[in-house]
């Protein structure tokens, strides 16, 4: 698979090759491609004159970077303390059940949904919450989550 690198070059030209910009560069690349493709990382390594190993060491350290493609809708279920004590796990279980996903398989085969947990979204006053591509959905229940997924699916047809 070959990846279009023009966007990457654009991002690189905005920041230059100092390593202190590496995390920002990776974030922008991920915003563009929804993950960090291997070819892109190798290209970044060449362009910034940093070893590929170094880039992987950074990319794998941070939770937000993904080396696997993610679905169109990234659903993050908050399992921070406040959400946890207001029963966030049944919501996670429900969503995984509907989408036939589990702890290891996080993205649906049609590349529509990725389901993850997040430690805290800081919206604790509205617990339990989840986000779909950064939009916050407050006071969730397993039933509301089921409806949300079917709404998102319907929007696709």
């Amino acid at each position, binding site marked *: 698979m070959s990846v279009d690198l023009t966007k990457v070059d654009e991002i690189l030209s905005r920041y230059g090759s100092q390593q*202190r910009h590496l*995390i920002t560069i990776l974030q922008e690349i991920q915003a563009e491609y929804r993950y960090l493709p291997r070819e892109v990382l190798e290209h970044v390594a060449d362009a910034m004159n940093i070893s590929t190993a170094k880039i992987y060491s*950074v990319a794998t350290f941070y*939770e937000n970077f993904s080396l696997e493609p993610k679905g169109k809708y990234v659903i993050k279920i908050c399992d921070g303390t406040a959400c946890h*004590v*207001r029963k966030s796990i049944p919501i996670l279980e429900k969503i995984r059940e509907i989408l036939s996903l589990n702890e290891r398989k996080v993205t649906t085969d049609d590349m529509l949904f990725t389901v993850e947990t997040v430690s*805290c*979204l800081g919206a604790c*006053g509205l617990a339990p919450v989840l986000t779909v591509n950064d939009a916050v959905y*407050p006071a969730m229940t397993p039933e509301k989550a089921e409806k949300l997924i079917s709404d998102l699916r319907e929007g696709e047809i």
Partner: protein
Amino acid sequence: MIRSYEELNRFREKCAEAFDRQTRKVLVCAGTGCVAGGSLEIYKKLIEFGKEKNLNVQIELDFEDKHEGIGIKKSGCHGFCEMGPLVKIEPEGWLYIKVSLDDCEEIVEKTLKKGEPVERLFYEYEGKIYPEQFEIPFYKKQTRLVLGNCGQIDADSIEEFIAKGGYSALARALFEMSPDDICNEILESGLRGRGGGGYPAGKKWQQVSRQEEKERYVVCNGDEGDPGAFMDRSIMEGNPHRMIEGMIIAGVATQSHEGYIYVRAEYPLAVERLKTAIKEAQRLGILGDSVLGSDFSFHIHINQGAGAFVCGEGSALTTSIEGERGMPRVKPPRTVEAGLFGKPTVLNNVETYANVPLIIRDGVDEYKEVGTEKSPGTKAFAITGNVKNTGLIEVPMGTTLREIVFDIGGGIKDDKKFKAVQIGGPSGGCLTFDESHLDLPLDFDSLKKVGAMIGSGGLVVMDENTCMVEVARFFMNFTQNESCGKCVPCREGTRRMLEILERIVKGEGTLEDLDLLEEIGKTVSDAALCGLGKSAANPVLSTLKYFRDEYIAHVVDKKCPAGVCKALKSYSIISDKCKGCSKCARNCPVGAIKGEIKNPFIIDSAKCIKCGACVSMCPFGAVEEV
């Protein structure tokens, strides 16, 4: 561009006049919580209706129009998140709760046009109606200083911030004080780091000032990673200029010219507001090569985190800004000697910087009037969990837990029994419904004595249906996931502790496991490399101390008193109540229920997966959970 102290004062007068000409103000809460509830749509709708009715609606300060106007603003977090979306009406100080799009027309028609209240939107509690915000019990015991502007001005407007006295502390620091004076004043104020450690900020600043290396940095820790905490987020979103002002003052005091703000990636709105605030400050000459026309230069950069809890630790944070894996390092040298890019660095958190302008503006004596002797000032807390009024609060240091949970928080949700408060996130501990804990004044020192810490200020209230062993497992799972792996005690110790806790909640634990947990916990506390590792065992050690009987119930009686741990539940059918309808058997996903029609059925506990389907299906309440 503002080129001098005098020009700033003149500009302030102009801003204040325009601000006061808005004789009516509508402040729509635009914190993350209310935004999720649709407050931005409400904001737009109010403007739309207001204009339709030919009212003099102003979305920003109007310097030209000399007529009275109605200011409609997006303000910072009002705090009462549970009741959102919130809309505040000035000058009366009314607070409308749970506002929806359908209410907008009535608000415009009644309140904006005629000055009458929409009474049905007032908060009501125990039969009493509370029109005014600060009469509501949730607000009454609060002292909102750091969050003061949240709910008073538009969070994005630098002019409104200046109208309310913003950047006057910076001007005083820049034109009337020497760097040493500033450090001394901060030291005298007793301001302690609000990020958890409680280290005196003035001392830190002095240590940086004393370094021979002249290239220095000011760094703001906005990596608020503790689950259950959102104070810093609310300050960054709702009062960004206050924090930026504090950072520039730290720059003046330590003669640094570059500032970095490290914000969690999970806070997109905060990043947006900070970017706007920085741009606005640059536009007015408050940030840049010549701050307020002086020869002092200061620039601020924003770095977004990428989802690593450990980056809230000082040395990990600076390493992350450098573009590396964010792992802590051995100290010394400390951050004040060799921090960002190996240079002396002032590193404080958001709330600490936001306190600085108050001290410089109002003076040390006034600042110290609030709070306790050793912990002056206020503290913002995020109160969440099984409590009636969740939200963001700010109280004087030394306020008791009882006041926070029962007076401000309104007690436990659904009138259940109070069980514990978890304070300080994964580094903190669990406190109990013990008189000596509830009446504990919340400050840096008294919490340490009972094995907890204020941490950044997350307060999660737990009711009787919470299993404390499960809570300990939850935190250990968090810390284990977030352990960076650099030092053995944290990497291996948290893993082993998690394994033991997982065993206990599965009903496979032993009494020896409890001793082992304690032993590993103490070792990790003693030997881990960084503050996060050192405090990782706190939730386990504090629950072992205060809720030991729950652990014993799990390991000896194989029971979970709160009924949370699935593996320790079992189901049986009460034969007297069972009519033999077979509904449970037909709905059991694993075929664990057998019996003959019209005779009592039986659950085969070996096959049962404890899903609870039979309980919810039984029309006669014959299935019992034990």
